[in-house]
């Protein structure tokens, strides 16, 4: 097994939930390579926030993008070479806040990229503000009296937007994370894994999650309505059991399959220019 580490010093807090995501995805990359998929065909993309440092820590091709802008970069890389596996990492503020429009459109296109969301439900790097998935009344540095708005349920939003693989894990469950990361990466189409990743410094939810999580059993992930019901069981706000695992899997044509595959060479360009000008006389 390759270490896949770089020389970058890891600056996540001790106990940070990001370590589980890092170690799980490294394990998945090793599995892919062992199964014959060369790692030079992997590109990882991140945004800005604690999550984003992950690209510095994994020794594969990477694009360290800007806040909210993981998705369009990942989409273009995939379109430029559909043979690649493109994995985007984003925080909840990044993907569900600043960059939500991109995420909805990527799901709508069913473009074959994987998004792994480090959903700690708090802004860590900017030191503790509420995010789109913080519960009602969350007291952060920008909302000292508690938030006055309900969280969004990102999985419900993604399901209605057209995502074809949706799963949830936690940072206290590496075996499950490895399974669903691998499934998501191998899934043909837009896949998203919402990881309830704990921020030990600003919003330590380990105990809360440990008490409520359970793994989906006997769930038909091919059934949209079952997926919707399970996704709605916990709305990121109420006190309810929190299901983990794959909620939804669907085989559907991808954006790149439906797109006209570009073809032709340099000579065709000159011919095209000549033709267009001849038509313009």
């Amino acid at each position, binding site marked *: 097994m390759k270490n896949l580490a770089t020389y970058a010093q890891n600056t996540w807090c001790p106990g940070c939930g990001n370590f589980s995501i890092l170690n799980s995805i490294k394990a998945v990359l090793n599995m892919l390579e062992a199964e014959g998929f060369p790692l030079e065909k992997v*590109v990882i993309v991140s945004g800005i926030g604690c999550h984003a440092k992950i690209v510095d820590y994994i020794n594969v091709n990477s*694009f360290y993008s800007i806040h909210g*802008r993981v998705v369009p970069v990942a989409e*273009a890389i995939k379109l*430029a*070479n559909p043979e690649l596996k493109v994995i985007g990492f984003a925080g909840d503020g990044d993907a569900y806040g600043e960059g939500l429009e991109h995420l909805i459109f990527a799901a709508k296109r069913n473009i074959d990229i994987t998004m792994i969301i480090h959903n700690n439900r708090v802004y860590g790097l900017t030191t503790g503000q509420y995010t789109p998935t913080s519960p009602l009344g969350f007291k952060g540095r920008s909302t000292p009296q508690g938030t006055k708005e309900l969280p969004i349920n990102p999985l419900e939003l993604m399901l209605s937007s057209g995502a074809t693989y949706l799963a949830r894990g936690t940072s206290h469950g590496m075996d499950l994370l490895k399974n669903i990361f691998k499934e998501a990466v191998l899934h043909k189409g837009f896949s998203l894994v919402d990881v309830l990743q704990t921020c030990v410094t600003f919003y330590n939810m380990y105990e809360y999650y440990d008490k409520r999580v359970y793994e989906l059993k006997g769930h038909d992930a091919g059934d949209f309505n079952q997926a919707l019901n399970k996704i709605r069981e916990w709305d990121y706000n109420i006190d309810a059991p929190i299901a983990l695992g794959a909620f939804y899997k669907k085989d559907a044509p991808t954006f790149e399959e439906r797109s006209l595959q570009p073809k032709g060479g340099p000579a065709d360009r*000159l011919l095209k220019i000549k033709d267009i000008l001849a038509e313009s006389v």
Partner: protein
Amino acid sequence: MKEFSILIGGKAGDGIDKAGMVIARILNRLGLRLYVYRDYPSVIRGGHTFSIIRASSGRIASHLSKVDFILALNQETLSLHRNRLKKDCLFIYDSDQVKIDPPLACGIGLPIKDMLKEENAPVVMRNSCVIGGFCRASGIGWEILEDVFRKNVARETDLNLKVARRGFDAANELVKIEPLNQAALPLITGNEAVGLGLIKGGLDAYIAYPMTPSSPILHFLADAAEGLPLNVIHPENEIGVILMALGFAYMGKKAAVGTSGGGFCLMTEGVSLAGMAEMPVVIVMGQRPGPSTGLPTYSSQTDLHFVLNAGQGEFPRFIAAPGDAEEAYYWSHVALNMAWKYQIPSFILTDKNLGEGTFNFDISSIKEVVETKPLAWNRQGQYKRYLDTDTGVSPLTFAPEKDAIIKVNSYEHDEFGITTEDPAKTVQMQDKRLRKGIYLAEELEGMRPVNIYGNRDSETALLCWGSNKGVCVEAAAKLGLKVIHPIVLWPFPVKQLQASLRGVKKVIAIENNATGQLVTLMNRFGFKVDEMVLKYDGRPLSLDELERRLETLSNPIGKVS
């Protein structure tokens, strides 16, 4: 008749734009040289829209306020433009729509409503009837009209021809437009020229969100992409647009985006990312009047400083502002080249007048761009995406590459691409990026970044940029003046401007903005500008208007030694 203008007007939805282009193509067949100005409101139906088709024996790129023909599909066209008409006779109109009081002794009224009814043709074909009337009135043979219709009117060609024939037969010859003994040249818009230049330069992906006046590039390339190795994508917004372009660039694919001021506002974070991550990208910025929504379908030169300064931080960029279709073609190719040679954001700064204006296009007059391949990795040792080199340009390689790991970063980073906050490395990498700008500036000095027209010995020079080239060149020819037209606006071509200003005692800047944006830039580099002719009502300067404005300056040009 060899020098004349035609104004065709109606309401939006009447097919004025299409009819104007068909007339231009008919005249083009006669060997005339043309320029078409399109004026339309930001609506789909209703509102006044018109085109001025100007014809000449020589190359032109401006229009005149006065016209020789008016083709009126509604009353408003007459009331708004009758004072432009040189002689009242050359006037063709839909007599069901236009009432003339007192009635004209000449001019041709066509009872189009009845004609359409008899041909069982829809009301949208009124424009074809007027074109038929115009051809007969100006002595243009039916076979030319028919040929142009067959080539350019794709829908219901035969019925359109029947309607045109009715107009043709109902009119009588008022003047004779004589064919010229010169070959017809293609007629294309500035936007199409940008698209063709990008295709020539090897564009792999064009990504854009619709916005006037740049949307026609998106439409043009989406059509042209068939059979080409070209991806054309219309994503969710302009932020997605530029970030996608950078994703393509990461993969070694040449990408360009197109927008106008409002969309470019959204792109600025991506421009800065391109600067830091050293991702090549071409940005076509078609200017229109602001602030904010402004006048969406009109023209301006108000975003020079916006483009110069867009994006946080300091990084090199390239900005070219072509003046006509041929320059748009050449410099779009150059912009793509420069973006990739120096791994920087590269701008084509256009405006609505250039983008949606129609020009003759002589490809044989355009010099070949010297193609330089982007610097490639020599496969020696460990690959470093941001290797610090003498020129600041790091060798490129792209995924999948077995022996290389390619890491790009929006944070300050080391040569391998890993984030750093180390002070010495920060300075090293900032210097590396800026060094590319020095070599870029040197290279551009050899590429004629400033053009001179007119009387080179004149002590008075008109200084203009972008689409004002055409009107300034013509005015200068009439008035015996020199024209200085910088195309490269960044890196600022200081040496070439110094050379072009030698012997000039008076500089008059001509700009489509309210503050003199090129003048501000000139002043920053120590150049003096004496007078300004500024026009910021969204409309282009006509030749006669510019002459008038030059005569009424505080120191009119005629009074200078």
